[in-house]
């Protein structure tokens, strides 16, 4: 089977399985497990969006959570019911008061506006490389946070933004996840995907074969931002209430952890990373509450789950420095090498 | 002085060296030639301790040095001018030279040696403050050689010292090497320019796909049909 065909087949099977889970799970599983699945799918969208620039283009962004936050607030503002808007956001400009959007259009608008924001932000920032682009994008995250805190007419400032209808259900998230995987898989395994990896490997050589480095990075950044914005909207409608600090460093770190652990150069790796980290931390969170084995009682040690997770991360990195999947995609029966992240000692200069 | 016995090195599934044996006696220049990918650089890297041998032994001055830390090996007296030059590109020419001598403590001798380097490679003296990474290709090659010499080694490993160097300078470098040889320096030389290599060397080994295909005194090998065959693998 050719790689193309295998990937297409993988996507199809994933779609069917996803649909089965999306519509089946709520009937079979308890609310708790449905929520875990939903969160895994939601985080998968966010991590995939992140992988486009961080994993495939080599622009290690620390700012994507800024887009998630922007998406959450934009769609939140758009979709709070009109009656509540008056009470919650009395200083909103008039035209925003007049209407409220249903979930899907609000999410699309959030995605598009966030992508536009990414164009504006990315145009200067994507010129930078290496650590500089990381710190600059982190600066963007901080700027978003400060603006969210200060633009209190729109965001209620540091006060919790609340009143967003709870509309994020499992089918919605699975649907968006399917779209994300589909679009990303097609982008990554295409001429454009090759251009991204070329830019990651060597910007100079990339421009020498006619690839516009800035353009390639910008496109990856903007598409990632779109899905981040969408994910932000899903988050907003999942939580119902949130504050600027919901979309800040803690979320950044956890998404990056999932991405790196899963494998930066692989779409399925990103998903695997999300699943592993989420399940592991759920299990550990229950274990740390203390348990008894026979007569032996282990007391509650809150915080122990983070410690154990930390050790597990280190162990994974020692034994699989490129993450669980590395740069391979999970396909049928065999793993497919898509692109190695260059790390032979020879090339480390 | 140096004796390599049955050396094997693998890179993952690639068997780069499949059991190489060679000897270098004190005061001797030995050339290592062979087609691209034959394993010449890998041999030198392994002697310097940068690659771990999977099998075989490396003996220097009667002591086994396989698996010894590279910095120890330099202190024992083996320096290398490596393939790809591996300069410290962000440091100046002067700093690169200083680092070449970092295993030594004899200040005066170091000073004398650096004067000698400036005699050998005058361009370096003019460019002391320039960052090594911005030197032209050939200038970098000269610096790499000088850096290795600054360690005052007893055994000098040279990986293609003429690579990217202009013809006039190639001759210059090889006459410098000949001078060093006269002064008693032991060298193991990897070189694509067989004529030059055999002119300088006392003996030579021809490698092919990770094995010694042929060896002998330079004079015997020169103009020998067998070398070309060994290169091309026509013999097999």
């Amino acid at each position, binding site marked *: 089977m050719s790689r193309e065909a295998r990937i297409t087949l993988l996507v199809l099977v994933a779609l069917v399985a996803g649909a089965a889970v999306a519509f089946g799970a709520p009937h079979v599983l*308890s*609310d*708790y497990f449905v*929520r*875990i699945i939903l*969160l895994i799918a939601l985080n998968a969208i966010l991590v995939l969006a992140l992988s486009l620039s961080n994993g495939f283009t080599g622009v290690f962004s620390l700012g994507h959570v800024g887009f998630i936050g922007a998406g959450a607030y934009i769609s939140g503002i758009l979709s709070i019911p009109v009656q509540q808007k008056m009470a919650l956001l009395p200083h909103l400009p008039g035209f925003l008061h007049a209407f409220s959007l249903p979930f899907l259009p609000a999410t699309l608008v959030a995605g598009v506006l966030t992508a536009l924001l990414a164009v504006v932000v990315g145009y200067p920032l994507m010129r930078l490389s290496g650590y500089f682009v990381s710190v600059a994008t982190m600066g963007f995250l901080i700027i978003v946070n400060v603006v969210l*805190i*200060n633009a*209190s007419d729109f965001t209620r*400032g*540091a*006060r*919790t933004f*609340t*009143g967003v209808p*709870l509309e994020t259900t499992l089918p919605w998230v699975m649907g968006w996840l399917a779209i994300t995987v589909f679009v990303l898989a097609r982008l990554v395994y295409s001429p454009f995907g090759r251009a991204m990896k070329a830019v990651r490997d060597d910007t100079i050589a990339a421009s020498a074969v006619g690839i516009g480095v800035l353009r390639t990075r910008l496109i990856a950044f903007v598409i990632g931002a779109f899905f981040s914005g969408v994910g932000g909207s899903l988050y907003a409608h*999942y*939580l*119902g*209430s*949130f*504050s600027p*600090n*919901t979309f800040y460093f*803690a979320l950044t770190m956890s998404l990056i952890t999932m991405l790196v652990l899963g494998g930066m150069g692989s779409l399925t790796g990103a998903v695997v990373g999300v699943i592993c980290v989420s399940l592991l931390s*759920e299990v550990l*969170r229950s274990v*740390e*509450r203390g348990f008894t084995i026979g007569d032996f009682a282990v007391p*509650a040690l*809150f*915080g122990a*789950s*983070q410690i154990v997770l930390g050790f597990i991360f280190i162990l994974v990195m020692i034994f699989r420095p490129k993450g669980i999947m590395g740069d391979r995609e999970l396909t049928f029966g065999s793993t497919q090498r898509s692109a190695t992240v260059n790390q032979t000692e020879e090339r480390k200069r | 002085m140096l004796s390599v016995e049955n050396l094997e090195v693998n890179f993952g599934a690639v068997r780069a060296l499949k059991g190489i044996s060679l000897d270098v006696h004190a005061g001797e220049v030995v050339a290592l030639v062979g087609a691209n990918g034959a394993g010449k650089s890998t041999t030198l890297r392994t002697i310097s301790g940068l690659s771990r041998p999977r099998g075989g032994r490396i003996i220097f001055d009667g002591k086994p040095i396989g698996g010894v830390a590279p910095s120890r090996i330099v202190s024992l007296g083996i320096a290398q001018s490596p393939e790809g030059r591996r300069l410290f590109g962000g440091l100046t020419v002067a700093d690169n030279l200083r680092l070449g001598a970092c295993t030594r403590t004899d200040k005066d001798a170091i000073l004398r040696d650096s004067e000698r380097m400036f005699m050998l490679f005058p361009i370096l003296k003019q460019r002391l403050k320039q960052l090594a990474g911005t030197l032209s290709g050939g200038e970098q090659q000269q610096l790499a050689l000088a850096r290795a010499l600054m360690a005052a080694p007893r055994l000098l490993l040279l990986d293609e010292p003429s690579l990217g160097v202009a013809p006039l300078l190639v001759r210059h470098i090889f006459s410098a090497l000949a001078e060093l040889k006269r002064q008693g320096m032991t060298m193991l030389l990897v070189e694509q320019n067989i004529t030059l290599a055999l002119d300088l060397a006392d003996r030579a080994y021809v490698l092919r796909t990770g094995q010694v295909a042929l060896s002998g005194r330079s004079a015997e090998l020169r103009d020998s049909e067998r070398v070309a065959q060994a290169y091309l693998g026509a013999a097999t």
Partner: protein
Amino acid sequence: ADTIKIGYPANLTGIQASLDGPMLNGAKLAASEINAAGGVLGQQIELVIYDSKSDSTTISTVASQLIDSDKVVGIIGFADSDSVLAIGPQVQTAQIPFITPGATSPKLPSQLGNEIFLAAFGDNVQAAVGAEFALNKLNGKTAYLLTDIGTEYTTLLSDYFVTAYEHGGGKILERDTYKIGDKTFTAQIAKLKALSPQPDFVYASSNAEEIGLILKQMRQAGINLPVVGGDGYDTPLLIQVGGDAAKDTYFTTHAYIGEGATPKVQAFIDAYTKSVGNAPENAFAALGYDSVKLMADAIERAGAPDPAKIRDALAATSGLDGVTGTITYRPGISVPDKSVSVIGVKDGKLVLASEAAPTFVAEP
């Protein structure tokens, strides 16, 4: 079931941990006292504790665990409004009564619904008491307002203070801001020092970590104005970090936990010290304690461990005598009318400066 399960999600790690930790200790103390005294309705009560890690997403997961898997009859939790807002919708949908010991935003019940109860007074109340105290006792007609814009509590408190203070005829001369986590306030202080005329006092809406430091840097810069604030000050850090600089500082809080406290409070301090190993870190310990008592009282009066009945009983709470004051819910209002203590610092010790209910309270 042989025990009555009460859910207790707590942010034991992450940024909220320094408040939720002591609060949990207080809650556990109350639970063990109740159980030692025979429990509720003849059954033991059990606190089902989860660490929600100061993270909204984890809170929502924990909520579904508590409601779906553990089948708790009521939930107690959190010192901050963020977390309450995160859990609120689920609690409301499942119709499980919920008490927040520490969140003080008076808007919570109206934002979330009728299952939500506050154990503490609202920020509008304490801000009003602070404003009236400054106007009447300190004779402070002009104020300088310093606000931590990084948290809901401090922003809200500032807003309520301004409303009450200006209503009472005071004038805000100047405002400035900082963000939680800042360690240097010298720039703001120099700005204050350059004000002419100087204000009569400073209202600093701050969290525990910063206030000691603000005071210290202010006094070091030679500013000796009185400083007034809210229950965020109420930790030992105020005096430990502030030292001498804490003089002439006043704050509104839930209970006076110090030397010469009421016997009830003193008994709590002793019991807490015995079970935890140190004196209560802050008033949140007492609030955690009171909340469990509040829930237990409601369950007892409901007559059965049934969430709907418990909610109704809770709403009818009247005159419950807690460590942090007397809790009564007026009909339809889930924020208790509690008296507010104003505590002042004198000779390095906390003293009760006044105890009052405000005459004017800003709308939530």
